[in-house]
């Protein structure tokens, strides 16, 4: 179950033979995946994306120093609410996961699980040097490196830690990517 929900799963082509076997004369059967694939080519997707980019709810999950700036970005006076970016506590309600610190070997399975629990379309972005390149802890015995090979990361926000304004800028970048259909979270890439 957990493996099926990873980022690669919705990029695979749908099994078409099965759909043909169950076809009834006079009735067109389809799957939600096919509808999805069809919609991506139409103007409806633009409207969907407009909605999606304006309600990027992120999972508040402080992991390190950047986590504090993440909290600050979520509340007054930075207040990301005005962009429709609202901190959520549960991964089930979130669209964006923010890796805000050093991923250790012990925490990595939990992080993967949180990512799997989020419903797609979902986006992930790295905040801070630790998750981008290891930061000051790149040589540590207990951290996992090269996070970008594991998660489909859209935006990297450098800084140690980045300012809350930079985190908001990261959200703006992700909005731009969604608008131009270049994000990795919706699965446009083949």
């Amino acid at each position: 179950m957990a493996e099926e929900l990873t980022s690669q799963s919705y990029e695979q082509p749908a099994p078409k033979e099965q759909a043909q076997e169950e076809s009834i004369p006079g009735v067109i059967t389809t799957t939600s995946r096919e509808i999805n694939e069809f919609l991506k080519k139409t103007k409806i997707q633009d409207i969907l994306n407009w909605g999606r980019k304006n309600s990027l709810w992120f999972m508040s999950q402080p992991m390190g120093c950047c986590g504090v700036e993440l909290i600050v970005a979520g509340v007054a006076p930075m207040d990301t609410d005005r962009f429709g970016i609202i901190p959520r506590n549960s991964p089930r309600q979130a669209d964006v996961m923010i890796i805000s610190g050093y991923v250790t070997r012990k925490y990595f399975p939990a992080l993967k699980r949180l990512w799997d629990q989020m419903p797609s379309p979902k986006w992930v972005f790295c905040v801070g040097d630790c998750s981008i390149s290891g930061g000051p802890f790149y040589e540590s015995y207990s951290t996992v490196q090269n996070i970008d090979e594991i998660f489909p990361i859209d935006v990297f926000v450098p800084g140690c830690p980045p300012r809350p304004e930079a985190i908001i800028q990261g959200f703006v970048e992700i909005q731009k990517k969604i608008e131009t259909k270049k994000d990795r979270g919706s699965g446009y890439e083949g």
Partner: protein
Amino acid sequence: MDTNIGPDEMLIHMGPHHIAQPGPFRLNVKLKGETVQDSDVEMGFIHKGIEKILESKTYLQGIPVVDRACYLAALTNEEAFVGCVEKLAGIEPTERSQYIRVIVEELSRIQSHLLGYGEYTEFIGFMTMFFYPMTVREKILDLLEMTTGARITHSYLRFGGVRDDLPEGFEAKCKEAFALLRRGLEEWGELMKSDTIYRERTVGVGVLTPDTAKEMGVTGPPLRATGVDFDIRKDEPYLVYDDLDFKVCTETAGDVYARIWVRVAEIYESMYIIEQALDQMPSGPLFPENLPYDRRAPVMRVPEGEVFHRVEDPRGEMGMYMVSDGSDKPYRVKIRGPVFPTMQAMPPLIKDSQLADVVAIVGSLDPCVSEADR
């Protein structure tokens, strides 16, 4: 903890991602009905091996790394590290830089307590209350930023002094921010103290007695809330705390309510310390003249020896034990953080309380998980 559960018992894992936790750690709670029977803390989710990394860095390179041991008390961490090296190398910082250090460390204490205060109110369900301290905290961070150049991780202290002098207009900005903070604290205090629900949730919850707190090695605000006036700034004065007039803030109840008001009282006290320090601060150089090395030299060989230096963190007793073998890197650094014993005291503290109170009790201890994991 015994994980075998009876017919009417339940095992709940809180964490590692849980909203009422300031960082990732796991609390395994065994419940009977709503009452906590037993619990167990699992940690190390952000263990990054700081002690090992420090062994591979020169002394100057070590300063940014200890900054990140606890991101809410970066300056006091630095003070412990820099103090260790100064004691080993026999450097005495100049008086002016000692005063500047006191000022920035107390500012750091204020911002940490404000976040603790705000976060705590959020944990017990006062989401709106969270925004007020965070707004004023920005003003304090502005002061820190104009002095040190960074909001959270400063790398400001140097062996024998500080990197830069206080900027122009610092005092005026300080006055402005403190006026705002004093007014705010009064307002929020009235708001919280008059709220029946808040009192119901906090008074008499998670009570620590002085003897159990001492037995568990708890320091800082949780200990002072039980009435023990243990404060390293008084008991083992470092910097110029000897010349400054301040009192150790204590309460007697030892419950969640008392812990919060100890923090609030400490914010007032820190402001008082800063105002005194600004008044008394002498002019003079930032670094002593007879420094045994160039102050920007990346490599400095510290004489052989070992030292244990303690400072008062916003969360309690912060100590560093440093062993030097005469080379340009420390042979061993042990960081004794205040949160480590405080987190250890969680299971006995939440025993026999209600599940809904677990969040209130854990939040009131204000644990900075990063520092406990290191």
